């Protein structure tokens, strides 16, 4: 999904954030967990160093919590297996580089130009705060459509 050199696709912001919401929904479905989900909505942001009046990228961060860790572990396995069946490509699955060596899954949906990183923060024994499944969904750069009419 390297868009360096290529002109970003023209898309209405609403269409892009709708896509993000749909993909997040899909991920949540596959997880199949009954817990709390943070209420963040997808938002549009300036894209890297590009002119922020012309270009944007979508970011949707959210988490699932109040779910037992073993269930979260099962959810991660399900994601690894089912995301490819829905058009995603899994780019990584293993411990991250923190001391906790948290399990992290990376995946790409190039057709829709989205990437996701999902991290299982198992906090049992090291914090009173709940363990969480952190989802970080982001898009490539898009271009605002020309203002015609």
């Amino acid at each position, binding site marked *: 999904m390297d868009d360096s050199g290529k002109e970003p696709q023209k898309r209405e912001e609403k269409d892009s954030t709708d896509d993000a919401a749909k993909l997040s929904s899909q991920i949540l479905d596959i997880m199949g967990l009954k817990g*709390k989900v*943070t*209420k*963040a*909505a*997808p*938002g*549009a*942001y*300036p*894209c*890297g160093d590009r002119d922020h009046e012309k270009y944007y*990228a*979508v*970011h*949707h*961060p*959210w*988490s699932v*919590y*109040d779910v037992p860790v073993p269930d979260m572990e099962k959810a991660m396995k399900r994601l690894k297996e089912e995301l490819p069946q829905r058009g995603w490509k899994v780019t990584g699955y293993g411990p*991250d*580089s*923190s*001391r*906790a060596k*948290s399990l992290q899954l990376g995946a790409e949906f190039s057709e829709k130009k989205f990437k996701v990183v999902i991290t299982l*923060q198992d*906090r049992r024994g*090291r*914090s009173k*705060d*709940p363990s*969480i499944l*952190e989802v*970080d969904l*982001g*898009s490539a*750069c898009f271009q605002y459509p020309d203002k015609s009419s």
Partner: protein
Amino acid sequence: MDYKTLKSLKPSEFEDAADGYRATSDMASAAKDRIENLVAPGMRTSLEGKTQEAALQQLKALSQNFHYTQTECGLIATSLNALAHDLASAKRKLDSAVADAQAEKFTVNPDGSVTYPAAGEKTDGKLPEGGTAKGTTDDAAADVYRQSANFNPNPNFGRAQEYANRIAAALQEATEADGEWAPKLRALKADDDLTVSHRDWADVQSDTRGVNKGAKEYLETLGGPPKDGTPQDNAKWWKSLTEEERADYVALRPASVGVLDGLPADVRDEANRTVLAEKRAQFHLELNSFPPMPMKYQPPTSGTTREYREWVERTGGEDRLEFLRNSIKGMDTIQDRFDRTGQGPDGLPRAYLLGFDPKGAGDGRVIIANGNPDTADHTAVYVPGTGTDLAEIGGDLKRSDDLWATTSSKVPGREVSTITWLDYDVPRSAKPVVEGDLIPEASNPKWAIRAASPFSEFMSGVQEAQGGPQASHTTVVGHSYGSTVIGEASKHGDLASDDIVVAGSPGMQTKHADNLDVENGHVWAMKAEGDAVPTLGSLVGLGEDSTVPTDPEFGANVMKTDTDGHSGYWDSDSGRPSLSLKNQAAVIAGKYDEVVLK
């Protein structure tokens, strides 16, 4: 004020009226908060474009109206309370004099004079006559009466005169209170247009001064914060006041309440917002009516013209103009933050203005919290570095917002508060030649040394308002010279914090992390690719023995970065937080194992 009026006066009626205005003030305050924290954010998500702009403009005006109503009704309530206090004092004196007179079976007449019966030793079979004593408040006349009492065969005369004098004094006191307060209360009438202008807010300032003058005695009964009190002392004093006394004190002294460490965040916020509104209006008015600068030079005469010098002396000249413009810019930036409440994926929480002063220690005072630190589970205080001042505070506020969002998403279900603390005289630059300093101002630790005490006190005040050291997990985050401030404050074992994070630190005035006032292992340092400041700092000796926090021998946890340069530590790419930012958030959230170390 005559005897009949004072006798039947019920000061409690004024207190009841004060309660009514207080209730109105509270209602206006609640409405203002609701607009800012609920209605406006809601409109931003549901409306678009010009409709949204128009709606938000109207809401802002409405919110200003409510704020003005809140402040003025607060002043009216305080005035009525102070008036009631003064009248009650006069009435007590009156009632006491009347009771004493009546106990001796004297008659107090409608005009306040005291009629006494015949008494004393009979001469020629007759008792000395009774009479009527007219009271006086004149000292000379009172003396004459006292002298003549010695010659009066009726012993009642002397005492009746004394009672009449006391009654007269009470009436005079009441008359003075009436005379003092009537014009002040009349001045608290608003003009009849629906716009709250700069002039209206400037009037609030002068109204407050007027009420302060009148309420001097009433204020004395409230006492004031202890002189040179610790945050604990201040908190104790505040808790000792009733709700009403607190409201009156805030109405009369918003600037001093706003800066009192140890007081609850919402109290400081209300007080400082009033100061902000008043100062904004005052500065706009001054700028709008600033006399134009006359010709500065007139060759062939050397030096500046006399007209120019006189203009500088009268108005403060270009320096004052720059100060006004910079202050207004900074105040607009603060208002922008208020307007951002509710935005962003997690919904930026309500802002608390914990400190505000256009001058401060020289670069202005701005202390703003995202979310209420008094109830937060995780609190962070961000101390900016060189070049920061009120006018340029926007970038720092944004960093605090990003820290809040990234930390909050690490601990869903928990309350997070991030605070920007600017309350010190900030050196201009850390790099040579920048800002015209060959040797950068930041190579001198004196600014940090001076900042150490206010910073310590502030942190101690936050801890006090939270309910003690166990109430919240607290992290201080220092950027650049801000880390030197933290080092100074922390060296003497005086920092109310659990963790210390420093980014781009040129030195912390000590050579090992264990010397800082947090538990060993709780100091975290970062230096990004392309950040020259830590090296510069080690050369000028802001760290002891040229040691800076990212040196291995300093003993801090060195965190990995993925950003560039001295100022990129809070960057996000396309909305996604950088590792530099995420690492800070991990420490603030107390998730030490989730930090990626270098």
